[in-house]
């Protein structure tokens, strides 16, 4: 009897509303996840393609499909391009075990064009908006916990970086800005794993960036930090500085006998 009270079109109406809401919600969420992708103009993509063909295609292939010299860039997203090209790691100076950060080879609009082109090849993590890397209100202590759990094993608890196998290394984070850190987390450059929003939520990413900026202040309540390299430099110092000083005094006190 409940069925008889409904209008025959009710089922379709409910379905339409449900689909519409889901679709709208999805559009909203995916727009948030990839805000840059929507603003890239066709000319920018074209300019990016031109730049790509000139500067990147020799290793990454004419259609960014990858080759024996470089990986495919389809689906890496604009974040990866902005990080790699923006930090001067790409284009690589020469073949090597790991791309070295150096002077940026492209200007801001060229990087944006390259990013737009690569982003147009397939969906991937995009360049974060200013709001996404704004750390005001983030949790510093939580950031420390997350940093020590996820980042310290390679970059060290002091963010000074560390050695990886076969000549690779995790670079120092002492000069990285929030955008770089965010892009590195979502794109996983070089040997770094990807920390997607499922692994570390956007708000947790803010916590990490806040903690890192605390480390970057390079405050050292105990005096000279000896490069924050831990016991190795401390051990070197006790011999080169401490024992040497005491032995000079000992020679001074002991000198006379002859």
């Amino acid at each position: 009897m409940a069925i008889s009270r409904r209008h025959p079109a009710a089922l379709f109406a409910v379905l339409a509303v449900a689909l519409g809401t889901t679709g709208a919600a999805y559009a909203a969420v995916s727009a948030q996840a990839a805000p840059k992708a929507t603003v890239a103009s066709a000319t920018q993509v074209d300019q990016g393609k031109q730049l790509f063909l000139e500067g990147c295609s020799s290793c990454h292939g004419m259609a960014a499909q990858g080759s024996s010299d470089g990986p495919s860039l389809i689906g890496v997203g604009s974040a990866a391009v902005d990080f790699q090209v923006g930090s001067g790691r790409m284009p690589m100076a020469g073949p090597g075990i790991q791309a070295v950060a150096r002077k940026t080879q492209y200007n801001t609009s060229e990087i944006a064009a390259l990013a737009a082109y690569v982003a147009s090849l397939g969906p991937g993590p995009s360049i974060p908006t200013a709001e996404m890397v704004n750390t005001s209100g983030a949790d510093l202590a939580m950031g420390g916990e997350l940093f020590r759990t996820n980042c310290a094993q390679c970059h060290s608890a002091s963010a000074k970086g560390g050695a990886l196998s076969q000549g690779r290394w995790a670079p120092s984070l002492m000069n990285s800005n929030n955008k770089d850190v965010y892009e590195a987390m979502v794109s996983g450059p070089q040997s770094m794993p990807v920390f997607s929003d499922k692994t570390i939520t956007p708000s947790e990413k803010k916590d990490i960036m806040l903690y890192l900026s605390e480390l970057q202040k390079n405050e050292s309540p105990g005096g000279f930090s000896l490069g924050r390299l831990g016991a190795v430099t401390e051990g070197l110092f006790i011999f080169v500085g401490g024992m040497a000083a005491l032995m000079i005094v000992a020679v001074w006190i002991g000198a006379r006998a002859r």
Partner: protein
Amino acid sequence: MSTTSSQSVSNPPATKGGAAAVYIDERLASSNFTKRLLDKVFPDHWSFMLGEIALYSFIILLLSGTYLTLWFKPSMTEIIYNGSYMPLKGVKMSEAYSSTLDISFDVRGGLLLRQIHHWAALFFVAAVSVHLLRVFFTGAFRKPREINWVIGTLLLVLAILEGFAGYSLPDDLLSGTGLRIAEGIMQAIPLVGTYLAMFLFGGEFPGTDFIPRLYSIHILLVPGILLALVTVHLIMVFYQKHTQFAGPGRTESNVVGYRLFPVYMAKAGGFFFIVFGITTLIAALVTINPVWMYGPYTPSQVTAGSQPDWYIGWLDGAVRLTPNWETNAFGHTISWNLLIPALIIPGIMFTALGLYPWIEAWVTGDKREHHLLDRPRNAPTRTGLGVLALTFYLILWISGGNDILATAFHLSINQITWSFRVLLFVAPPLAFVVTKRICLGLQRRDNDKLLHGYETGRVLRLPHGEFIEVHEPISTHAAAVILGKEDIAPLALEAAIDENGVRNPKAKKNATRARLSSWFYSDNVATPTDEELKAALEHQAHALHEAQEHSGAIEGH
């Protein structure tokens, strides 16, 4: 304190100090002992003060450590940090770590004292090690001081253990990582390892029992044994008298130097304040072990560049160099990758170190007492062996920082590891040969100086055009130092069959010994005999005279 000794009651002391001394002496009968103590003569040499640095660091450790015990809580009770270090506020941690943070940030003078304590610990083990090298390279361990050498070796082992215990107490990320490795090493001991680790940690790692237990060990047990052994060590130096280098008037049966009171006391007392001052200065200026940066220990975390204090570095390096060998037998795993570097290698090294006086005495057959020290060049084989062991140690030590080397010099950590694996076997023997050759060269140079005098740098041109450099005889002090070297002949090879045709049962063993003795001594350069020296001195005087005559002649032009 006055040292006036007065045995006679009939003659009352004139001064107040004298009266006090008589008062004490009548009750403790101490004047005789005090006088002997104050008149005790110690020889003078800068290298004899290395042991003093160790002693003074130990005193600094006791003082600063006592202060730290007032604030440190050796408890694994989990609490929420609410101190003044913002980046850790609200983080769950043990009371041990939280109280270490409080010492660093909220206790007045706490960070300075913590840093004094830690730097003094590095100083302590460094001074003990360098002191050990001095004693080794000068042969001061020889009869009658072998027992004191063993006590010194024990002190070194205990100092290393004590340092490691202290490093592990704050329960920060580095402490916990170090303890995790220590637990792994315990477990690597065949058969009993797992039981031992479970017993010490009170169950599975990390548990809540170990930090309080380690605290008792760190502040009571080991320092108590250290203090007792240091006392015995010093009493033995006192009774056996300090060794001295050869020089004018110095023999095997005297000690040339200053009385304890006042000169030596002033020097040693002043040196204590200098050691304390430099330690405090370093602690005030230079960070050590910034525990706040590493966070509380959690088994799920680890930081790149985790290193122990320097004195554990060689063991860490040995572990890093050893390939990942394991044997599985009868359901048990033998972890050679930990057993070899962390137990077998240090076991062999410390045993060889402790037994060295007897090993050398057996090889050389030298059973005499020695109170005059060897200059390292005059015992080339011993010096070479010392440098061999030191090279082995240093390569392990550097390997402990292979990751820091890799990042600092942009090298591959794998290549560094392989290079050190090779160097560990190649470099020590090479160091032995090079050191021995340098020692022998220095011996020849000593003889040269004795026989031909030293080069003055004055070059003369003789009337017929020849250039000569004027040599002058070296000082009597320098000559006495060089002549202090004694020439020892290697043990003679005994005949396998004696003159009556009877086989000597000990011959085979003795032959090995003779060969070793010859290896130890035979390359030594003989010191010039008295006749050679006399002739050389005459020749030197003659040549000098001639040169002077010529220089007069030239100047006359």
